[in-house]
């Protein structure tokens, strides 16, 4: 049994079927990337995995447990945490409060303080902005905060939804470098990206999603070489 296993997931918005039977797996310690065009269903998949959307059919199994019917808070407690599309930082709250909310499911004060220190090692910029409200941060800083906030829960599986969206190229490289570092520290990562080139460069395996279906699955290296993927997602 895989760390995370998704079987035949179907998710609908009213009459629109956004996921048409998606199956995939993530093994412990991997970075798995999910690439695909806008509207392919990437965000829908992550939202379904987090319990924000309810699948019509299909099953999600995490570490041997069927979590399909679980509420979002229970899924987070089990260790599946996401940095959502659009970051969704709490704009009216300080950077510190955002990070504290990331650790909402935890009670171990000392360890939380230690983890906050670790987030500042990864993102020194956040430490400088500690008491600033999140709404005043730049886009890149907000992205750092969203990832740092997700880390504060000590996730077992970290899901990142478009962490590079709208960031300057230099910052994009920085973010991907940090994702690799987080993975080396033992966090399994499911990375959703439109920036397929960078995502495939750091991932172990990848899936290509197209109109709600997995159309390709391979090691990241093989996908990066694949003619179809190169044409469609890597700009030739």
């Amino acid at each position, binding site marked *: 049994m895989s760390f995370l296993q998704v079987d035949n997931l179907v998710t609908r918005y009213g009459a629109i079927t956004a996921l048409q039977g998606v199956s995939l797996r993530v093994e412990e310690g991997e970075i798995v990337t999910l690439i695909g065009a806008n509207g392919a269903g990437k965000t829908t998949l992550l939202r379904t995995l987090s319990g924000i959307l309810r699948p019509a059919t299909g099953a999600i199994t995490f570490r041997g447990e069927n979590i399909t019917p679980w509420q979002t808070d229970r899924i*987070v407690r089990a260790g599946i945490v996401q940095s*959502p599309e659009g970051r969704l930082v709490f704009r009216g709250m300080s950077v510190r409060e955002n990070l504290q909310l990331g650790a*909402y499911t935890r009670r171990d004060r000392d360890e939380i303080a230690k983890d906050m220190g670790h987030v500042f090692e990864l993102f020194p910029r956040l430490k400088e902005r500690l008491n600033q409200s999140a709404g005043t941060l730049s886009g890149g800083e907000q992205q750092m905060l969203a990832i740092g906030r997700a880390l504060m829960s000590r996730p077992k599986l970290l899901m990142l939804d478009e962490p590079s969206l709208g960031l300057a190229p230099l910052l994009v490289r920085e973010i991907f470098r940090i994702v690799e570092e987080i993975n080396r520290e033992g966090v399994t990562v499911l990375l959703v990206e439109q920036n397929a080139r960078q995502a495939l460069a750091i991932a172990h395996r990848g899936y290509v999603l197209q109109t709600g279906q997995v159309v390709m699955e391979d090691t990241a290296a093989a996908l990066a070489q694949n003619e179809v993927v190169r044409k469609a997602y890597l700009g030739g």
Partner: protein
Amino acid sequence: MQEFLQQVINGIAWGGVYALIALGYTMVYGVLRLINFAHGDVYMFGAFMAFYASMWIGPRVTGVGGVVLVILFAILASVALGVVIERFAYRPVRHHPRLTALITAIGVSLLLENGGQQVFGADPQPFPSLFGSAEPIQIGGLIIVRSIVYILVCTTALLLLLQYIVMYTRFGKAMRAISQDPTAAALMGINIDNVITATFALGSALAAAAGLLVASYNPQIDPYMGLLPGLKAFAAAVVGGIGSIPGAVIGGLVLGLAEVFVGASAYGDWREAIAFALLIVILLVKPSGLLGTGIVEKV
């Protein structure tokens, strides 16, 4: 000058009471985007629970202990009512259009008022004097009615306590997180249902405290006593900026002072209308309220 200061003190006291009630509206609006029109009736319920509790406890426990028991019972009973209203009236319609929830709230309010008439009787009841002597207090040249002093002390203490809860506790942070972004809050592992329940509990406790304080000043209670203060406090919450906690306090104080000064002026008859005049003015001039930031609609 003395007259003026005395009126300012009265205005702040009544403003504090409006603030206590307005906070319940604004906190519930924050987490649910619902105007809980039954909130004023929880205020009435709190006063009645204190009335019955003091009939039972009064002869059995004397002194300060008895008063504390009466207050605790009234607050806990109102908390229970608030939680029951949320669980059985609002939760089933939470994912329905907002109008459904609003109409439900009006229905709950009517139910409590008319149900109150059945259970408590339609005649006004004499509220017991919880705080003992009615002798006014003299400070310098100022003569202040004793229950006004209690109102000032209690509302200040409650507002400080609330500030602490909202800003520094785990629950307070969760409540603010939900009012900013419910989806992101859920992704933090916050159990939204529990926080909404706790928000109703907290708002109801404040409303009950307000009901007690007002009843101890004006010792006549009836099942409709929550209607007008509820509507006025709602106006105060909108004036301050619905959803904003400091806004509710400021809106309450503005309303309290405005009422007292209008009441003391040549236009004293307009006292009861000033809340709604303020509401209309703010909706024309700054619809998001004094401290409201306006709603950012996502596209």
